[in-house]
């Protein structure tokens, strides 16, 4: 036997043998002797101890993981206990062992729970256990596992309860956490059921058992059950007392009651949990609603018990069983030991149970709100598929942190449900739902789409409560302290804004806030006794960045997209920021500089990033010139740093981000050539770096830059608005409108130009298709792909390749329709869809339908968020396009009405953002269009009036705008029209 290292061959065998035991197998020693006869003697002398030691080690692990550190003692399986004949063991957990048994006198199958003697402990505790079990037996509720009775035999305490054919919610969570998404979501039941080995217990085939996969499919709505989609009260209880021959039926039925056993079934995978959770599955709406319904039913059952004066004390996914009818069953009522938690907090070893324990329970107090808390955490875990709090957080001592927001990791969860869940999990009992009934009622409200009563916890409250729970903050350095105080103020103001204008819309903001808390908390946890200056600095810097990020993100329209898109595909919105923000930021910048001066660490990157943030905020406030300057400063700083670190892709991406913002700023100021120039710089910066080409993020940014170039290129090639049939005035061709930079030869014909755009578009599409293939779940890629496809449609239209244009347009709309369906509450996709629907009318009847749909979507957006300028702008533009169609169809009067409506919105935007030339342009063109109509209707005074207004406004602009050419050109056209009308 030749082996790769210097170990004894039997050592290799021993290692394999031990590995199999660790994996939960039961390898036989004789098997090894047979296959390796030459080592048989040695195997016989070495393996028994390995077997023993490994089993002991495994067992210790189990007990540790199931939270039962004290009762390492194994209970044997008795043949019979009292009236009960034991058939088999079906579960093992912290409380004891669960057997399937037959009650001889009644000939019924029951689940028999035998309490470990160590758990039962002293005589006093035993008495209390019996009292509790007796009162639990008095509970009669359609969602509570009935307790038939309790008894004692051979010195063992046991109680009998109904046997439920179902799976615990812990198993379901575990399954969803480890199963690949397509297994979970497979519509084909047989496929899914054929592979249950990885999720259900045991290796034996159990043909008719209601398995985890069935339960999951049920929850996802793939298969329906009696109870899942109907009212909870109709849940059927499974009563086997009528079973004619219970013993014979056993093996076929394998009715299973499992409690606390999920950990036992999956030894050795603890290291993978985080990873699996991160991959996870995508939850559909059916699942989310079914979970809400299930938990509402549990809350109902818990409320019923509370009214009888019985607390559960140990609600957790492993104690909730879902049966094949979709009925949820609460097990182990009142059986957890009461207020005897000293050992628990001291050993810190029973994370399994600790995980769901309310903070007050750790202090030995419990009331109805304690059960609410545990149920809240259970709901959390079912929705997020990972525990709300991890072990170090749980055991970190006196303070218990807030649970992270659900939508941070699972944006598909509705905001209301998130609010409900978080309210149930608030650490302070007085701020939680005060009863299970309140909790249930809010869940029902959510299910019926009625407004919920829970209110989002405001940021100021969170900060305040956080600092109260974290006295460690006092040990931070003075400069950091000041920064923290400033942050608190800014967050407070941010919160005010949110309440007023943004409500729950701004996920970006929430994420930033969350990060801030998590970072600070993580630090506080690690700190304990020592606080390091270096770490403090990092904290301060990251906190600072978070504040910038969240202020910058404020007022942006819904950014559901992942961080890949935070360079915003959509120009940012302005309205909810105020100049007070800038003042505060400047104050913060002062602290930042001080901090930088106090520390020797090189902060140039952080400083450059901060300048860029300032630019973002100025841009959002419409201070475009200031923004441009800030961006330039930041860009220069980055270039200096990049000079020292030429291979750092992140620096190039940072520069790309700034160039992108500069492009947007230029575009807003009407400086299209400058904007295109920025995009070209961006593109060459990106293509020059191999590191960028290697990263998905880099390729994505590149594709977006190309997308932008194509869009601008198309705009300068043909401005659709000018192509409207112009009957009253001379048409001013777009070719005259070109003010391109020197490297764009004027002689380029439109077709040549289009060819160039086509190439670029093909390149962008190729990158994006690949990215979307590599990561189909990324919504950012899909949105960008839709945009590139839309550009393709526009190019085809200009080339008069109508079929291709239609095809591409339908594809773009298809992508966005899908996104909108997947995320119906996302404004972002609604916006993109509306924008695409209203693109480039070709004056066919189908276009009108699309425009009307776009109008409807825009109206919803504007009504929901009157302060977001992009929504209003798109609404007005859509109206103007509808008016164009109406004109072509000869519906002049209606066109006039529509245009007036558009005019109102344009005017509002132009007045609100005088610096943003785009809005002024749009207003002028709408006025011009309206003047056409008036002229056609021979209402010359009105026509003149419209043109005069447009001219006066633009003249005001031309005097202060740096962008002379486009303004002058438009002014010339307006004046020309005006002169034809005479005085």
């Amino acid at each position, binding site marked *: 036997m030749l082996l790769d*290292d210097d170990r004894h061959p039997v050592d290799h065998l021993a*290692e394999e043998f031990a590995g199999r035991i660790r994996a939960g197998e039961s390898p036989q020693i004789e098997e090894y002797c047979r296959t390796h006869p030459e080592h048989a003697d040695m195997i016989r002398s070495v393996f028994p101890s390995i077997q023993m030691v490994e089993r*002991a080690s495994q*067992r210790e692990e189990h007990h540790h993981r199931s939270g039962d550190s004290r009762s390492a*003692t*194994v209970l044997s399986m008795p043949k019979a206990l009292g009236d009960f004949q034991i058939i088999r063991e079906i579960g093992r957990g912290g409380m004891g062992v669960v057997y399937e048994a037959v009650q001889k006198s009644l000939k019924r199958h029951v689940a028999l729970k035998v309490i470990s003697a160590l758990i039962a402990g002293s005589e006093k505790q035993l008495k209390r256990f019996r009292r509790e079990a007796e009162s639990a037996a008095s509970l009669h509720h359609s969602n509570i596992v009935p307790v038939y009775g309790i008894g004692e035999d051979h010195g063992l305490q046991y109680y009998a309860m109904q046997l439920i054919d179902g799976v615990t919610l812990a198993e379901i969570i575990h399954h969803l956490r480890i199963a690949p998404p397509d297994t979970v979501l497979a519509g084909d039941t047989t496929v899914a059921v054929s592979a249950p080995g990885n999720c259900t217990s045991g290796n034996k085939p159990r043909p008719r058992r209601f398995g985890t996969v069935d339960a999951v499919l049920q929850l996802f709505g793939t298969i329906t059950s009696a109870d899942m989609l109907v009212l909870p009260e109709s849940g059927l209880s499974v009563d086997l007392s009528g079973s004619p021959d219970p013993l014979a039926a056993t093996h076929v039925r394998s009715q299973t009651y499992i409690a606390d056993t999920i950990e036992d079934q999956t030894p050795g995978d603890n290291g993978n949990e985080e990873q699996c959770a991160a991959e996870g599955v995508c939850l559909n709406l059916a699942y989310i609603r079914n979970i809400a319904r299930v938990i509402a039913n549990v809350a109902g059952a818990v409320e019923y018990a509370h009214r009888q004066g019985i607390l559960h004390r140990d609600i957790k996914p492993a104690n909730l069983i879902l049966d094949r009818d979709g009925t949820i069953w609460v097990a182990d009522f009142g059986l957890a030991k009461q207020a005897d938690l000293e050992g628990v907090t001291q050993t810190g070893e029973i994370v399994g149970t600790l995980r769901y324990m309310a903070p007050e329970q750790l202090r030995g107090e419990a009331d109805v709100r304690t059960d609410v808390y545990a149920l809240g955490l259970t709901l959390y875990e079912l929705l997020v598929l990972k525990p709300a709090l991890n072990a*170090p957080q749980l055991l970190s001592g006196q303070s218990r942190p807030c649970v992270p927001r659900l939508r941070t990791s699972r944006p598909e969860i509705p905001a209301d449900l998130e609010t409900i869940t978080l309210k149930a999990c608030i650490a302070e009992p007085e701020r939680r739902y005060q009863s299970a009934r309140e909790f249930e009622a809010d869940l029902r409200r959510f299910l019926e789409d009625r407004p919920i009563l829970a209110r989002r916890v405001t940021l100021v409250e969170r900060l305040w409560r956080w600092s109260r729970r974290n006295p460690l903050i006092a040990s931070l350095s003075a400069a950091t302290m000041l920064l923290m105080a400033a942050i608190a103020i800014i967050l407070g103001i941010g919160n005010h804004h949110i309440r007023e204008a943004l409500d729950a819309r701004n996920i970006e903001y929430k994420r930033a806030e969350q990060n801030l808390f998590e970072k600070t908390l993580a630090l506080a946890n*690690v700190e304990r006794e020592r606080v390091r200056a270096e770490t403090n600095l990092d904290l301060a810097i990251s906190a600072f960045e978070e504040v910038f990020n969240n202020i910058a993100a404020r007022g942006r329209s819904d950014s559901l997209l992942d961080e890949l898109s935070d360079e915003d595909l959509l120009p940012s919105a302005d309205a909810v920021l105020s100049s007070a923000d800038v003042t505060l930021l400047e104050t913060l910048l002062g602290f930042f500089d001080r901090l930088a001066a106090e520390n020797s660490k090189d902060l140039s990157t952080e400083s450059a990033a901060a300048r860029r943030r300032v630019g973002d905020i100025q841009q959002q406030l419409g201070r475009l010139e200031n923004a441009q300057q800030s961006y330039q400063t930041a860009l220069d700083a980055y270039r200096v740093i990049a000079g020292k670190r030429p291979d750092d892709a992140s620096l190039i991406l940072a520069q790309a981000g700034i160039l992108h913002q500069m492009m947007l700023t230029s575009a807003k100021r009407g400086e299209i050539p400058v904007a295109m120039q920025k995009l070209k710089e961006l593109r060459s910066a990106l293509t020059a770096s191999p590191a960028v080409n290697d990263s998905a993020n880099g390729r994505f940014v590149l594709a977006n830059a190309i997308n932008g170039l194509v869009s601008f290129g198309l705009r300068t090639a043909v401005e659709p608005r000018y192509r409207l049939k112009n009957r009253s005035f001379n048409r001013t061709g777009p070719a005259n409108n070109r003010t391109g930079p020197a490297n764009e030869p004027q002689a380029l014909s439109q077709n040549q130009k289009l060819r160039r755009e086509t190439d670029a578009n093909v390149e962008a599409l190729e990158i994006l298709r690949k990215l979307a293939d590599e990561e189909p779940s990324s919504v950012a890629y899909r949105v960008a792909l839709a945009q590139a496809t839309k550009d393709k449609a526009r190019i085809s239209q200009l080339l008069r390749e109508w079929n291709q244009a239609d095809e591409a347009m339908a594809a773009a709309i298809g992508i966005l329709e899908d996104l909108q369906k997947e995320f119906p509450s996302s404004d972002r996709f609604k916006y993109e869809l509306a924008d695409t629907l209203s693109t480039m009318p070709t004056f066919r009847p189908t276009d009108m339908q699309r425009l009307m749909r776009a109008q409807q979507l825009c109206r919803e957006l504007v009504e929901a968020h009157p302060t977001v300028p992009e929504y209003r702008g798109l609404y007005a533009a859509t109206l103007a396009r509808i008016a164009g169609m109406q004109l072509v169809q000869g519906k002049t009067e209606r066109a006039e009405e529509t245009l007036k409506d558009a005019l109102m919105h344009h005017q509002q935007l132009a007045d609100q953002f005088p610096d943003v030339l785009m809005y002024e342009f749009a207003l002028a063109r709408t006025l011009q269009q309206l003047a056409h109509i008036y002229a056609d209707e021979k209402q010359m005074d009105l026509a003149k009036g419209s043109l005069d207004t447009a001219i006066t406004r633009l003249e005001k602009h031309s005097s202060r705008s740096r962008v002379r050419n486009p303004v002058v050109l438009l002014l010339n056209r307006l004046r020309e029209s005006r002169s034809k009308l005479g005085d």
Partner: protein
Amino acid sequence: MNGTHDDERRMLREDGHTALASLFSTYHGRLEKIIRFRLDPRIRSRIDAVDVLQEAYLETSDRLQSFLESTDVSFFVWLRQQTLQTLVDVQRRQFRQKRDVNREIRFASTGTSDGTSLSIAQFLIDQLTSPSQVVVNAEEMQWLQEALNSMNGVDREILALRHFEQLTNNQVAEILGLTPTAASNRYLRAAARLSEILQRLNSNTGPAR
């Protein structure tokens, strides 16, 4: 194996504390297991493995530079040493603080090597105890511990490292300063010896499972 070591070292050199945090969380579970195994049973109810880990993390992050400067040790082995040192410190503090804990001692214990015996004995007794017995017989515990004590200290340690800490033979060799061949041979010898001990214990305590 060396590839991993080099990778870890390179990560730590390049990303410093960020890399340390991520590596630490990779080994978190194993270290916790090691602490639970090594934790003095007398204070198990007072000390939380997670607390020790947190403290160990702070220590390692303090001493990261010294690791990077050394060349002769793999990261995991170094991390384990740091963690165990932290554990020793924590335990020492505990015993100083709570003198009365010492009165609860049921079994004599001197030095770390005996600590290993005690730890192993504790776990094995749990496994050996026949089903009818709920409370472990202190006499048997004593006997097993003595038997384990009679084993060569290094052999005993090898068993603990291989099975309770689940280390590889190479790691064991590195920790104990043995060649892999010697470590492997001693491991097999120790396992055979333990089999004998257990067999005798089993026949003393009546029919086991």
